[in-house]
């Protein structure tokens, strides 16, 4: 398939049930999504399971995503991150129900063997054009009733309307190395707090407990860190001339 096609062009083809287009999107983004999954889950099997689920879900939700015109890369990264963190929370709390595992992995074995026995690929993925049972995180997403699709999207990732334009993400991709240096400029305690939020999905309260800090300090530090990154990003991407 032509390299000239944008991810959004490919997504439109996915909406027409073009498997080759899905494969092309996978080739473009699987490495970065899988790297993120590994960072969060520390298990190749679990990471690959969530990776595949993200692409299954992309297939299922391609039409509304395509209509909105948001960035495919952003959707994949944010949605897969959310799904991985939900998996992590379940594992962490020891609440991985056998039936939940069976839905996902085609096995009724429990948490003790789940990371070694992830067989998601042996069960057929959901049919195209339907929201897959297994794609979303188990945070109540499945409780959506009438009008529940927006709720599903909001809980499992971001609604399509919230996605940045593809051009914005391309700018970030072009300067990702520089942007990551910004994060290394953060004070250590702020960086630790931010990493716990990004890769462990902890709340402010949980981060404070993890770092042994007063909640107020963690809260202030996190806001300062995010504001610093946001301002630097604007400056690096040429969107804000302020000297910060």
């Amino acid at each position, binding site marked *: 398939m032509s390299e000239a096609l944008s991810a959004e062009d490919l997504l439109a083809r996915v909406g027409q049930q073009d*498997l080759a287009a899905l494969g092309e999107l996978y080739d473009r983004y699987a490495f970065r999504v899988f790297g993120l999954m590994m960072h969060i889950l520390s298990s190749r099997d679990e990471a*690959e399971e969530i990776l595949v689920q993200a692409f299954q879900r992309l297939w299922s939700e391609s039409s509304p995503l395509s209509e909105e015109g948001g960035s495919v890369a952003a959707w994949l990264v944010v949605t897969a991150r959310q799904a991985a963190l939900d998996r992590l929370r379940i594992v962490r709390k020891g609440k991985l129900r056998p039936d939940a595992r069976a839905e996902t992995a085609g096995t009724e074995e429990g948490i003790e063997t789940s990371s070694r026995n992830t067989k998601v690929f042996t069960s057929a993925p959901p049919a195209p054009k339907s929201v897959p049972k297994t794609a979303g995180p188990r945070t109540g997403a499945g409780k959506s009733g009438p009008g529940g699709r927006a709720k599903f999207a909001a809980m499992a990732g971001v609604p399509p309307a919230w996605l940045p334009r593809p051009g914005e993400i391309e700018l970030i991709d072009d300067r990702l190395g520089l942007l990551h240096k910004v994060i290394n400029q953060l004070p250590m305690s702020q960086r630790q707090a931010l990493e716990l939020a990004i890769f462990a999905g902890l709340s*402010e309260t949980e981060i404070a407990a993890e770092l042994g800090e007063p909640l107020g300090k963690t809260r202030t530090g*996190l806001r300062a860190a995010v504001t610093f990154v946001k301002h630097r990003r604007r400056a690096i991407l040429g969107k804000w001339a302020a000297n910060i």
Partner: protein
Amino acid sequence: MGCQHLEEIYELFLLGALSEQGALELREHLARGCPHCLERIREAVETVYLLSLTSKPARPNPQAKTQLLNGFQKK
């Protein structure tokens, strides 16, 4: 409701780090269709994207792609 007090929390909301109360307040505000906040939340998604990609890319098992695509073909 003004939006200024929300400026610092869009990213934390998306990261899932906010308290339930803070997240609820922002979610309700967004649900009312505030155009300013919609723009800010898009920008926040960009920030979450770049933060998430501080993880190093890694190569999944090649079988993953095959099985993903084969699974659809079987349908």
